[in-house]
């Protein structure tokens, strides 16, 4: 592979957004045709920026400054126009729902294919080919926003394949994917490898991708470093250990939430079937299930926002809902105002705001910043910190808090959630880090509308936190 000319070459690439610090600081790397390269790095390390720099959108659309050279097939990308470049290089971005222009999936794909080829018959042929290749046939008559995260990602891969690209860049492809969809995505990657596509995958949650990647690069301090051998040496035995957590929970077994024969339907589809759930004060309950299994609906019913179709709910707690799209939790221009406002509306007085602000400073968040300017992980931490301190009898209903976080952030947030005495129900589509704390949580599985107690499997993925911390810090 190394005897050939690189397909894409980054020659001392520096990039920064307007008036900002340099995010990429002299990236030197070559990517060869047919190889799969996994690029890992902490949140904010510049992975998305790297994709924007490579495609030229960083300068054109985001007004950034680029130094150095990005050479594609021996030509500087600045010499290529976008229509030429984006037929060969495709980006499958973080939020797949942003990549659809027509509401109906079939029309969206066809509109784009018609742009690529003029002949209607050829367009139909390409459409049928990519739909079959990505197993989308059953979904093509659906609106894109009705698709689950995994389905939307698959549809976007189909769209990317329409131009038969040479290089595909995936920006956090596993975000929002449940464990089944992750396997599905891995199958897609294997398939793309068979087609000899060059793949660059930028991902936090990289464990499932290690074995299918030819090389693993770490993006840290604005440069890429090869960590293939280190990453591939993570020991399986070391990872399956349980991690002890000291909890403040008092085991008084007081039931504060109970559902009796709960059913829910939307239109004529049954979403939840006969859900019987009992939650004691201080419990940490995990609702594990694939995308579209009804986890969010269940949380909204428990929160009292949706009325169940049938069944009863008994609640004896102050409910708080933390959504998956975490920015929807915030309404004020600064963290400080956010805290003052929640204390005021709940009639908790100035003392509440003062104590809470101190706790927020202790977790390393600048209270003068806008909550919208915090990183995703910090926004999750802040929402949890605020929620658990505004009532003694709070029950946190948290929807997918871990997607979009690095393993280190995931474990830190989960450990933090396990240490206090507040009751939590957490909906998640991934078991990866949860098994590590299985004795501290009650895990249920929601599948096809029914809730089952989850039986742990030794095959569940687990992570060596210390190893990852050292890797990110570069001390390995």
């Amino acid at each position, binding site marked *: 592979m190394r005897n050939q000319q690189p397909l894409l070459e980054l020659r001392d690439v520096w990039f920064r957004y307007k008036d900002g610090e340099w995010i990429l600081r002299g990236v030197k790397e070559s990517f060869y045709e047919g190889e799969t390269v996994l690029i890992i790095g902490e949140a904010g390390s510049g992975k998305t920026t790297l994709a924007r720099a490579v495609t030229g959108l960083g300068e054109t659309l985001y007004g950034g400054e680029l130094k150095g050279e990005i050479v594609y097939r021996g030509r500087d990308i600045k010499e290529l126009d976008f229509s030429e470049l984006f037929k060969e290089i495709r980006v499958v971005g973080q939020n797949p729902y942003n990549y659809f222009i027509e509401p109906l999936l079939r029309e969206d794909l066809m509109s784009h294919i018609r*742009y690529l080829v003029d002949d209607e018959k050829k367009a139909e042929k390409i459409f049928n080919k990519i739909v079959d290749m990505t197993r989308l046939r059953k979904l093509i008559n659906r609106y894109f926003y009705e698709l689950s995260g995994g389905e939307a990602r698959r549809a976007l891969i189909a769209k990317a394949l329409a131009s038969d690209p040479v290089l595909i860049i995936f920006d956090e492809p596993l975000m929002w994917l449940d464990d089944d969809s992750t396997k599905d995505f891995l199958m897609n990657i294997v398939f793309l490898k068979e087609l000899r596509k060059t793949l660059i995958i930028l991902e936090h949650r990289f464990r499932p991708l290690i074995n299918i990647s030819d090389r693993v690069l770490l993006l840290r301090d604005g440069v890429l470093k090869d960590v293939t051998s280190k990453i591939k040496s993570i020991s399986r035995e070391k990872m399956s250990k349980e991690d002890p957590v000291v909890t403040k929970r008092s085991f008084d077994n007081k039931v504060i939430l109970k559902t009796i024969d709960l059913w829910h339907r939307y*239109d004529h589809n049954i979403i939840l079937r006969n859900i019987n759930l009992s939650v004691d004060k201080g419990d940490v309950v995990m609702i594990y299930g694939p995308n579209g299994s009804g986890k969010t609906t269940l949380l909204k019913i428990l929160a009292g926002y949706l009325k169940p179709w049938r069944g009863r709910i008994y609640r004896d707690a102050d409910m708080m*809902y933390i959504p998956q799209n975490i920015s929807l939790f915030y309404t004020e221009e600064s963290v400080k105002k956010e805290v003052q406002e929640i204390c005021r509306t709940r009639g908790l007085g100035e003392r509440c705001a003062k104590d809470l602000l101190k706790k927020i400073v202790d977790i390393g968040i600048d209270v003068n910043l806008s909550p919208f300017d915090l990183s995703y992980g910090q926004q999750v931490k802040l929402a949890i910190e605020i929620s658990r301190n505004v009532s003694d009898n709070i029950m946190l209903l948290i929807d997918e808090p871990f997607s979009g976080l690095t393993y280190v952030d995931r474990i830190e947030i989960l450990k933090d959630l396990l240490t206090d005495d507040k009751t939590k129900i957490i909906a998640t589509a991934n078991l990866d880090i949860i098994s590590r704390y299985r004795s501290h949580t009650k895990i249920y599985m929601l599948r096809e509308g029914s809730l089952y107690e989850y039986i742990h499997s030794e095959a569940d993925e687990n992570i060596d936190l210390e190893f990852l911390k050292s890797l990110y810090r570069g001390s390995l």
Partner: protein
Amino acid sequence: MIRGLSYLFLFSDKRLGYSVLSRIILILSLLIILILSRSVHNFYIYISYPIIILASEFVILTIIGRLRKVLSGIFMIAIFILIGIIIQLINVFLRLPAPGLTEIIIGSFRLTAFFIGFTLIFQLINVREWRSILSRLGLTEHAQTITMVLAQIPVILTYFSEALVTLRLKYKGRKIFSAITPLIYYTAQNSRNIIETYIMYPMKESRENINLFNKKDLLIYIYIISLITPLTIS
């Protein structure tokens, strides 16, 4: 409820066999007749037309398979109308200046019919047809913007629903209006991502055939004439 609301702005994919022109004329006629029926000095037309037009809209929604979804979406609008009726009734009770009960009820029907009629623009004319019409008028870029806006409405409404649940619990039922803040943030943040999509995955200018007449259109025109005739007589 909010998800249902999003369907009010989405094209129904049911092929009806009517031309684009007749569909546009139907929607515009319903809206214009609704407005005119208010200024006609005929009590029977004044009270019957909003009901007839609302009933016609329900028939159209049933044909395109949207009635259930629209009714669930319209529920939120109905709440506001109900609040308006209650305020007016309180005014009547307190002997403050207020319209009569018939006018209040008919006004509510008129408002609902007008709102549904307006949303039919989005439900009966698909985005490709809009793109094609605007492109032929030389407004290609506007056509793309309209497509993008229509496609993003359901996503924004879903987030609005999420924000409502979150903030209702967070602020104990107060400050619900602040749900708009995170949505503004979301829209600003995503607008550039969507432009990115346009650059990376462009669309072909719409080739949708804008047909101006089908035999079936006669049904629509006969119906419109039957609605207009009593209006012109009175």
